[in-house]
């Protein structure tokens, strides 16, 4: 009985990691599209969205089955709750990658302009956050998840800086408003992905330690 349950938990973990892989791939392709201005990568991101959505549905379904059939307790219950929440976050990561791809398509429909924002560097930090959060989930390592939480501030600052310089650019050169706005939105999308990575890390800590570290605290059940 239990070993069947354990198989179910293992399957759930595997499915979520596979979905995480798809979400990471979507971020990388969207970034590559921006860097190379090649619409092929945008198309790949758009085409890949349905696989992420399907994975989300499958994971929800398996979680529901395990909750109903096995009535898990304690660490197993926390694991399934964490999976359900991480699942929703990964699906949103996929959506954000699609948004980036759409912005890039708009960007490359016009001649290239130089903007004082390093999107690939920001994307690199964001991608690392997602990767580390999934690594923490794979190994059940709360310390790795904590390191992800530390990185969120860096990405927030990058987005704030991008906002300041891009607004200034638009004021000084109204002709570049459209591409600048696209890049501003991309930086916003990346910052949202970093927030999802943060949520994933928090869920890993909840699963492993039973502690709620959302909103900057460490709340242990009394």
């Amino acid at each position: 009985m239990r070993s069947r349950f354990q198989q179910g938990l293992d399957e759930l973990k595997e499915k979520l990691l596979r979905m995480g892989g798809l979400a990471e791939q979507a971020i990388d392709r969207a970034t590559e599209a921006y860097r190379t201005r090649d619409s092929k990568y945008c198309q790949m991101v758009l085409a890949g969205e349905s696989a992420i959505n399907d994975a989300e549905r499958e994971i929800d379904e398996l979680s529901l089955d395990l909750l109903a059939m096995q009535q898990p307790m304690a660490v197993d219950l926390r694991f399934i709750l964490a999976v359900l929440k991480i699942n929703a976050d990964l699906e949103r990561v996929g959506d954000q990658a699609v948004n980036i791809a759409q912005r890039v398509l708009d960007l490359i429909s016009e001649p290239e302009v130089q903007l004082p924002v390093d999107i690939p560097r920001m994307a690199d930090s964001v991608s690392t956050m997602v990767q580390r959060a999934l690594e923490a989930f794979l190994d059940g390592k709360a310390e790795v998840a904590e390191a992800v939480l530390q990185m969120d501030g860096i990405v927030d600052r990058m987005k704030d800086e991008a906002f300041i310089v891009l607004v200034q650019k638009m004021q000084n050169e109204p002709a570049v408003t459209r591409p600048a706005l696209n890049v501003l939105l991309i930086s916003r999308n990346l910052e949202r992905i970093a927030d999802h990575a943060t949520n994933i890390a928090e869920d890993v800590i909840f699963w492993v330690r039973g502690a709620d570290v959302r909103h900057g605290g460490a709340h242990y059940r009394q």
Partner: protein
Amino acid sequence: MGVGIEVRGLNAWYGKNQSLNSIDMTVAANHVTAVIGPSGCGKSTYVRCLNRMHETIPEARAEGSVKVGEMDVYGSGSDPVEVRRRIGMVFQKPNPFPTMSIYDNVAAGLKLNGFRNRKQMDELVERSLKLAALWEEVKDSLHKKSGASLSGGQQQRLCIARALAVEPEVLLMDEPASALDPISTSKIEELIFQLKQHYTVVIVTHNMQQAARVAEFTGFFLMGSLIEYDKTEKIFTTPADKRTEDYITGRFG
């Protein structure tokens, strides 16, 4: 009203085998407390020590302090009959007196305690059957039907009514629903929830979902020791002890 229970340094033996090791536990009045643990962990022995049922088994004995409200259960002047009147018990298998009518089953404890006033007895029988959520089902056949003619779930509620008739302060339940179907089980669980308004309830159960559903506090026993005792939500979501976690997640042994 229910009263609290203070257990300090409780040890129990079957012959030379020690089955409980220095248990300390404070049970809150008018709450439901569940006792869980694997077979042979001492959980049934523990509740049977609370009302001195343990010592009715040959060569079984218990030592330590159990205070139920003001009553010192193992004090020198303590009377086991009075202890068991004030601390009622319901067992795993419904055990009504098979040939007695429903009424006589409920009144049995009262009669045994020398109760003679017929009118008051009628009132107590009705009140107990109502508290046990059985009144509506049996009120027209109180004297016509025997205890054994009822369904399993009804029989168990009849046994609860019988235990309540002598007006205890504490109700001990040793796996009260394990022999019942899901509908009867949910009735018993609902009943346990209602009963805590009037009594302190301690329930032994193998069914952890049941403990989670009915109890506010849960104690986990293992090899005669109380390993962890906390709010039920805490025990079933984030237990502090690895052994508790291993047991409730089925990774035990």
